[in-house]
């Protein structure tokens, strides 16, 4: 509860600073509306905002699910097969070198103005952190556990070791990747909406901006922030619940 109190206090402080800037700077509402005007707009347009938020949330969720599936399969392939490492690793690095911003117009061209291009954007933006973190976890299975498995198995069974030891051991690392993904997936979706769309919070913000409805723009921004923060906390809480163990690494003793 003390944490919640701190959050509320910080929010109140920010709102106060906002109001002071508007009052002292004598800013017109079409440059920076005061908090009350934004709140009024939020209330007035609640239904419409909710509709657009639903579209954006769907894009983010689909992007998260597909990006996580693709990222996990890539990481598994990378750790399982040397050939995959040789062919997929450069692609993975290249996927990070090309900014998603740069190919957003192409994605809209190829996948259309609907959900598809936004899901692809969210997917692309989270693919690297998910893959890189999970792969890293898979590569660093504590040696003691692998030794134990090797003595237990009369003949090597890579899949059994992967399934019973390496994958569970890498889950905390995947968890870090998913936390990053939850924080950046909304960027992908909104970016896609800016480039070309007919629904979603990003679309609404552009639309409001071009009509000087700055209060509505801020209202949409607040809803987007709430969405992103909510997503992060849900992911974080689920990970804490399902992966309660620490990434405990038994020290590996060298020759003694």
């Amino acid at each position, binding site marked *: 509860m003390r944490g919640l109190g701190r959050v509320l206090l910080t929010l109140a402080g920010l709102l106060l600073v906002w109001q002071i800037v508007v009052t002292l700077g004598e800013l017109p509402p079409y440059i920076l509306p005061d908090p009350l005007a934004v709140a009024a707009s939020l209330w007035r347009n609640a239904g419409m905002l909710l509709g657009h938020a639903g579209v954006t949330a769907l894009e983010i969720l689909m992007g998260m699910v597909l990006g996580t599936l693709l990222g996990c399969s890539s990481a598994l392939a990378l750790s399982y097969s040397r050939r995959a490492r040789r062919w997929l690793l450069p692609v993975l690095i290249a996927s990070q070198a090309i900014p998603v911003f740069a190919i957003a117009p192409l994605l809209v061209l190829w996948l259309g103005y609907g959900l598809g291009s936004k899901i692809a954007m969210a997917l692309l933006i989270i693919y690297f952190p998910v893959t890189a973190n999970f792969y890293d976890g898979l590569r660093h299975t504590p040696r*003691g556990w692998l*030794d134990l498995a*090797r003595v*237990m*198995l*009369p003949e090597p*069974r890579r899949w059994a070791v992967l399934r019973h030891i390496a994958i569970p051991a890498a889950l905390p690392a995947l968890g870090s990747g998913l936390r990053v993904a939850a924080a950046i997936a909304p960027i992908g979706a909104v970016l896609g909406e800016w480039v070309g769309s007919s629904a979603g919070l990003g679309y609404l913000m552009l639309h409001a901006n071009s009509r000087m409805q700055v209060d509505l723009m801020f209202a949409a921004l607040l809803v987007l922030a709430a969405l992103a923060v909510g997503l992060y906390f849900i992911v974080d809480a689920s990970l804490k619940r399902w992966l309660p163990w*620490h990434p405990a690494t038994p020290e590996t*003793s060298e020759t*003694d």
Partner: protein
Amino acid sequence: MTPAPLAVSLRAARLVYGGLILFDGLDLALAGGCFTCLLGPSGIGKTSLLRLLAGLTAIGISGELRGDDGLPLTGRVAYMAQQDLLLPWLNVLDNVTLGSRLRGEHPDRERALHLLAQVGLADCALARPDTLSGGMRQRAALARTLMEDRPVVLMDEPFSGLDALTRLRLQALAAELLAGRTVLLVTHDPLEALRLGDHVLVMNGRPATLSTLPDLPGVPPRDPGDPAVQAAYRAILRLLGAV
């Protein structure tokens, strides 16, 4: 329940580490069904020798390893390390039956529960390892080692991370439960070796050589205060140059 005793011989073992010959042409024989302790200072290559016996080969180490039936040891060895190596996402029972699940067999839960009762963890079968004390975790590791039911058991300083009283209790437990198997216990604690070993080997020098201590009277686990144990303790300390 214990498998038939199997004697083990390692011939011409050689370890080169960082350009340094730690041992070369080393021969080691483990008598079938006996508890052998390998004693030596840190960094002498004890762990490497044990890993070689366990089939955990690495660059720079080699040797001819065989059971006395002439067959390789693969699949007939159980291994217990200094760390308990319990998997934190599995409860104690699932940790004990890890071997069968890795091999794709159906785990024998009855036997696992029986072994957990033998090591004094009957009430902790469903507990997560991180809720257990260090001594209890090492007990669970001992149950997992016994669950493998192999004729040869290799242990690498399994009790060195424990407090003195817990260590004494676990030594007694290990001596009782491992009786009849061919055991090699690597340790740097002379008292532990004298308490547990039917035979005690001392590894010393560079390149290292093995020497066998005269067998002590009595059946392990011996009383650490026994005059014969104390006399042998002093002899070892002199041999290793500690006094």
